[in-house]
């Protein structure tokens, strides 16, 4: 059985993060704002955050409260990105003084 060491795994995670960042920059340059572009960006933020937190920060086997709180953060913010795109008027009404 091929065992990938943690040391080697970091290389693959880094390459994945580089590819996702360049894709985001391409989306920013080449596409107009749309639901699909927003969804892709939100998913990219979530994946990048979860990869850094769980692999670089080594939260994948850390205390469950710490792992859950950081993972939740990186689900909440992408969710907000999509919600702000979908319901800006509703949110503006809710936050008007």
């Amino acid at each position, binding site marked *: 059985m091929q065992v990938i060491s943690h*040391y080697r795994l*970091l290389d693959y995670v*880094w390459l994945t993060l580089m590819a996702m960042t360049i894709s*985001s920059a391409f989306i920013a340059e080449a596409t107009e704002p749309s639901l699909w572009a927003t969804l892709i960006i939100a998913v990219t933020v979530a994946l990048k955050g979860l990869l850094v*937190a769980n692999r*670089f920060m*080594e939260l994948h*086997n850390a205390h469950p409260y*710490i792992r859950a709180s950081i993972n939740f953060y990186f689900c909440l913010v992408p969710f907000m990105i999509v919600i702000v795109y979908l319901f*800006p008027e509703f949110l503006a009404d809710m936050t008007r003084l």
Partner: protein
Amino acid sequence: MVANCVAQTALTVETIERAPKDNRVPGNEAVWVGIYAEMTEFGLMFLIYFIAKVHYLEMFSDGPRQLNIIAGTLNTLALLSSSYCVAKAVACVRANRFKLAERWLWATIAFAVFYLFVKSWEYHWNQQQGINSDTNLFFTVYYYIAFNHFLHVAWGGGAILWAIFWLKSGGYTADDHQGLEAIACYWHMIDLVWIIIFPLLYVLG
């Protein structure tokens, strides 16, 4: 072939032995108080960004297009790479490879300096385009968030320099390197925050 198997087994055993324990607090409790405080602070800034955006949709749609996407992308690549270098350094310390760990930490410093240089250049470029903190609300939010993050990279770099000094002084061992883990976690937090800042300020139109 047997030698290869033995070497592979030894490597696997070492990896298992040196892997961090389950259910632990990475670094120490104190650094996590700091990390939660920082992430709450930036969380409030993101909330302000979202609220400002729904009230000024056009302004927040035009804003990212006026910023320098190349600078933003280069800084994202630099910070992710710096985080990778810190993770490699921690893995090296666990494997008793201290000289290599020191090189990874110096690489982290190089990426941090690169980030600070690009960010400073970007602010200069903004000025040349007539963009400053009171141009409109988007740029006020941009400068507030981005400069706050800039300061975090600067003092986080200082913490990495401290880790290098401590490593060279023999302060970390494969079994006891809690301080290095704490500094590494803080640095990863700085990277995590930028992962959100980049799309909010540079990508989402």
